[in-house]
């Protein structure tokens, strides 16, 4: 079965938003693509839709450096929210930062599945969706 999943992109870079959604579409990887420009926008959406499990994303691609609320700040809030989320969500940190302290910090958060350094290759994206599918079945 294909196209079952919602992929959520949280990143303030408009070009990245464009390329990632285009890639997802081209490779037919998602049912729905949700785009947010910073952590706060995404969090607001989560809080509003916490009970609409099917509208919530299955996979989150989360950037680190964003205005208002950055990726790590988003994770702090998300962890508080997690008990109320009725489905399994995979979170990937996707950043252009090669700063070891960012990578270490992401590794410390058990809710984060992996740290991917931009650019994210289409193959990697396919692999993420595949692994989610394996995980769920």
């Amino acid at each position, binding site marked *: 079965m294909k196209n079952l999943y919602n992929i959520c992109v949280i990143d303030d870079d408009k*070009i*990245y938003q*464009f390329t990632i959604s285009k890639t997802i579409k081209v490779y037919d990887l998602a049912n729905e693509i949700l785009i947010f420009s910073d952590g706060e926008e995404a969090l607001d959406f989560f809080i509003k839709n916490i009970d609409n499990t099917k509208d919530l994303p299955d996979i989150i691609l989360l950037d680190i450096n964003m205005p*208002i609320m*950055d990726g790590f700040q988003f994770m702090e809030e998300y962890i508080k929210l997690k008990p109320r989320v009725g489905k399994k969500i995979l979170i990937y940190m996707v950043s252009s930062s090669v700063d070891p302290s960012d990578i270490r910090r992401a590794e410390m958060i058990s809710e984060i599945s992996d740290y991917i350094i931009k650019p994210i290759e289409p193959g990697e994206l396919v692999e993420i969706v595949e692994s989610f599918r394996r995980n769920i079945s």
Partner: protein
Amino acid sequence: MNCCKKKYLLNFAEKITMTGNWQTNVITKTVKWSANFYRIMGLEENTEVTFNTYLEHVHPEDIERVKLHQQNTLKNNKFEDLVHRIKLQDGTVKIVRVRANINVNEFGDIIDIIGTCQDITEQKASEQKIIQAKENLIVLTQHLSGQNKQLEDFAHISSHNLRSPVSNLNALLHLYRISETEEEREELFEKFETVISHLTTTLNTLIEALKTKKECEKELEILEFDHILRKTKEIISQKISGTNAIITSDFSKTPKIKYDKTYLESIFLNLVSNAVKYRSPNRAPEVHIKTEIIDGKIKLTFQDNGLGIDLKKHGHKLFGLNKTFHRHPEAKGVGLYLTKVQIESMGGKIYATSEVNKGSVFTVIFNENRHEEPL
């Protein structure tokens, strides 16, 4: 040991320690100096001396202090150690340390004072050299730490600010290769243009910052804050009238500064236009700019009633390159970075205090002691 031998030894000891001894009889008002004390004072041995002879040799700038010390000695029956300068008849200036004991009679009245006087000019000069060397080292260390910090910033910038547009270019390139219609390619081409123009801005900013660092010896001129502000207002006059911004200032405490003109203009332009740009939608922007002197340094503050910034969340990256804190179409994250680089290259610092929805205060502390060159 006979008396003569003792006297010889004492004289010898005084010579090598550059010390002289003296006695002042308070009752008979007579003074007696040792041979070496005469030498320190630059006088022939056995010249007729009175108490005034000594005072006449005290350096004019120290005379008040020495006289006060004298009064205190007589009042308290205690001679505190005293260091002061003397000026010899030939103009030589020396630094001496004077120590003495007081002898009193059974009624507690002073009979005489017996003391030593050591020439510590060389000692003081070496001390001064050490202090100077230490100060130079501090300046050098600050300079090096500053450069180190700037290098770190640079590594950080190249990692963050150059990597992301380049990775965008790669992603766009991939999409371009697999694109099927002319329409798609056109859309992608527009995106290419956006990234390239962004990359150009970043590179230009970096070059601007590099230039700042190289020109550490700028031509400084005396600038009037009032003039700089007037010029800033002219440049952003449209923004000011468009937003009904009220800009007030008080430079009465210190109206002028010796600084690099381009930098000061850029500091004003960035901080004033930021204050107007990040205004609250609920009120007309008000900006108040003033100068003060704090610990001998000029402090310049820009206070606004704008959106404010959550410094707990963003404080650590406020002055970073391409960091933005508002969902604002004009927020590019270039201004504050360059402003900071410019201020720091001139030895000053900048920091902010802010309250969300109340406003922000940006404070610049200029370094007034930077006329001394690091080593």
